[in-house]
């Protein structure tokens, strides 16, 4: 508990000398400051500006940069999500809503829609960390501005159906096709569980919106 262990170093006092000495010292300090700014002015190489819309081709986010949540689909177009809702529980602000369904053929719980509210997401990575099958990913796509905030409610799945492991066990493509139904990646603004969006968001669209096309 001795203070000496703190190794305190004490601030130097600001001294004043005479009238003229102060003027001279003051002017000198001002000139030194001007020297620094002028060095930057006269060296255009010190400009550090990145010109964003112009540098879009070369702009690369860091791999770990967390912005847009995605549910990666493999080369066959299938994901690994089992609709276990662990991410939904891990989310601190209710931004994730996993809509599951009973599989028409298998009879087991499978993912119908994976709804993610970007408007309230804090990109804290809790869902990605919590996912036991590591089927979620946050990527660095930051260009997500919209004119209407209900566009910020995303559906991440391209199809409603079981995971890729289950699907790939089925050898016959026709048989496999029966197991899943296509879903829009972004199937319009979806109210969470049919309730209004907090914040006066209008209830837009219906949860059972018709599927648009084949994925």
């Amino acid at each position, binding site marked *: 508990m001795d203070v000496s262990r703190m190794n305190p170093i004490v601030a130097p006092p600001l001294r004043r000398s005479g009238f003229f000495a102060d003027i001279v010292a003051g002017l000198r300090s001002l000139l030194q400051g001007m020297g620094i700014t002028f060095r930057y002015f006269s060296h255009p190489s010190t*400009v*550090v*500006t*990145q*010109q*964003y*819309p*112009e540098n*879009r081709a070369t*702009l690369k986010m860091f791999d770990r940069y967390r*912005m847009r949540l995605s549910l990666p689909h493999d080369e066959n177009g299938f994901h690994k999500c089992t609709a276990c809702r662990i991410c939904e529980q891990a989310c*601190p*602000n*209710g931004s994730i809503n996993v809509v599951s369904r009973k599989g028409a053929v298998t009879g087991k719980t499978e993912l119908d829609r994976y709804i993610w*509210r*970007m*408007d*309230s*997401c*804090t*990109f804290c990575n809790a869902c990605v960390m919590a996912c036991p099958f590591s089927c979620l990913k946050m990527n660095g796509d*930051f*260009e*997500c*501005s*919209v*004119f*209407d*905030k*209900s*566009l*910020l409610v*995303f559906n991440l799945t391209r199809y409603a159906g079981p995971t890729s492991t289950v699907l790939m066990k089925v050898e016959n493509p026709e048989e496999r096709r029966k197991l899943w139904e296509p879903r*829009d*990646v*972004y199937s*319009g*603004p979806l109210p969470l569980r049919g309730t209004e*969006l*907090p*914040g*006066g*968001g209008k209830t*837009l*669209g219906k949860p059972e*919106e*018709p599927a*648009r*096309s084949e994925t």
Partner: protein
Amino acid sequence: MGLITEKLPALVEPVPGGSVLLSSLDAVINWARSNSLWPLTFGTSCCAIEVMMAAGAARHDLARFGAEVTRPSPRQADLLVVAGTIVRKMAPRLKLLYEQMAEPRYVIATGSCAISGGPFIYNNYSTVRGADEIIPVDVYVPGCPPRPEAFFYGILMLQKLIREGESLRTPGVRRKPVLAALPAGITIEQIQQELRELLEPQGGRR
């Protein structure tokens, strides 16, 4: 609105060729407005650091868009960036600030808090769930906080809105380029594709 914008359309429209003149005037004014967005120095929390400070700093340089003239007085500002949480105590002040701004005025809501209340939606007694509960918002920039580039993307969208959605004929009325309710089958990628053209180097200037 100012004297010119109020009286001019009614005076000019009946004149032969007046509507052509108005249209070209529209183009000039909208060009000027979209390129001269002076933001109000206003930020309530974390987003202020990213979208007001870091975006204005040397690395990202808001000045490239002509928007570095941050005005501390709402009278002189064009752009209100709602950067951060708005709580119930702040809400009347935010409205007042918006009302003090001179037309035309634009609002960008940045970050989850200003869009929807963000992390403070549930079990919270004080946070307003989105700045649009209080004032009309033109562009929403998601992120928590959005990185400066994301904010620039929002500014580009606002510029698009000003160029395409405004006319001297109906002062104060703003038409958003993308409809509020999406027609079925349009994906967010398509909307972003539509916006991509203005991100091209030459497409940025009309």
